[in-house]
């Protein structure tokens, strides 16, 4: 169960629309790379505790996980959840030869995370006129991660879902912002709405 969203209705609506635009740009980047249509979801915005975030990440069964931090006017972390299902078809579209080696799989996961999460963050930052730098993604295992060590008690979670039409592959991108960044983002949204 999510806690009360620290955004009013207009701020949430605006953020959702900006994320939608960013997702479109991200999906187009990937669609050009693999010459295949990408389906995108309506962005979901919630506020969760670290424990709830852990549960949220496990909603996808049999998945690969990456995380990458971003710094700048707003800072936080992007976590990507990539389904294992359908990854072979995506690899083929990315012109990898079968069978995939462990290194190939790792490279594909990191590349997909970087393209989609990177384009989403870049799109959102550009529209809000905020400066952000995204670090390289790393693979991680939520089972081994200690979410209680996260720097925030509550985080704003912006959840986006991409699916590749001709395969069963799907990917979720979850942005987490700390309180300070949330305050900055709210102020920027208010300027946009004024």
């Amino acid at each position, binding site marked *: 169960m999510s806690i009360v969203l620290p955004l009013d209705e207009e701020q949430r609506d605006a953020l959702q*629309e900006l994320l939608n635009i960013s997702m*479109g740009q991200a999906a187009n980047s990937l669609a050009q790379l693999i010459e295949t249509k990408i389906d995108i979801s309506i962005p979901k915005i919630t506020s969760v505790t670290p424990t709830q975030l852990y549960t949220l990440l496990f909603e996808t069964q049999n998945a690969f996980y990456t995380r990458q931090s971003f710094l700048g006017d707003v800072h936080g972390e992007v976590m990507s959840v990539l389904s294992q299902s359908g990854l072979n078809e995506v690899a083929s579209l990315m012109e990898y030869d079968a069978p995939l080696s462990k290194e190939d799989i790792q490279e594909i996961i990191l590349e997909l995370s970087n393209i989609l999460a990177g384009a989403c963050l870049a799109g959102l930052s550009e529209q809000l006129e905020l400066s952000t730098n995204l670090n390289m993604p790393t693979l991680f295992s939520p089972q081994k991660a200690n979410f209680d060590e996260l720097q925030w008690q509550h985080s704003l979670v912006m959840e986006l879902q991409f699916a590749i039409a001709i395969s069963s592959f799907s990917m979720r991108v979850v942005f987490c912002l700390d309180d300070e960044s949330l305050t900055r983002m709210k102020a920027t949204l208010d300027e946009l709405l004024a």
Partner: protein
Amino acid sequence: MAIPVLVADDSKLSRRSVIRSLPPELEYDISEATNGKEAIALLAQQTFELILLDLTMPEVDGVGVLEYLSAQEIKTNVIVISADFQPEKQRIVLSLGAKRFIRKPLDKEELAMTVFELGYL
């Protein structure tokens, strides 16, 4: 005479932006829908000359609205305004009868030009 226009988008910010971006040289009678289902309900009740349609919406998406228009043989000018601008998506909506496709974030001048190109002046 005012042009009956339907603006269908789940985002209030986006609907506001679309309405503000319509060329001021013309008069409009604007109705708003917050999803495809509401848009179809309005289309069943009244006639619109121009529809400004988002694609990624809850309940029924923009493609669903275009399919409804096609099935009901409703001839109206549809301008799709969407963030999902992949070539395949553009091909689908144009094949379903949309007249134009405009990318979000919306460029005010592009919308005005498109409206004029459709013969409203």
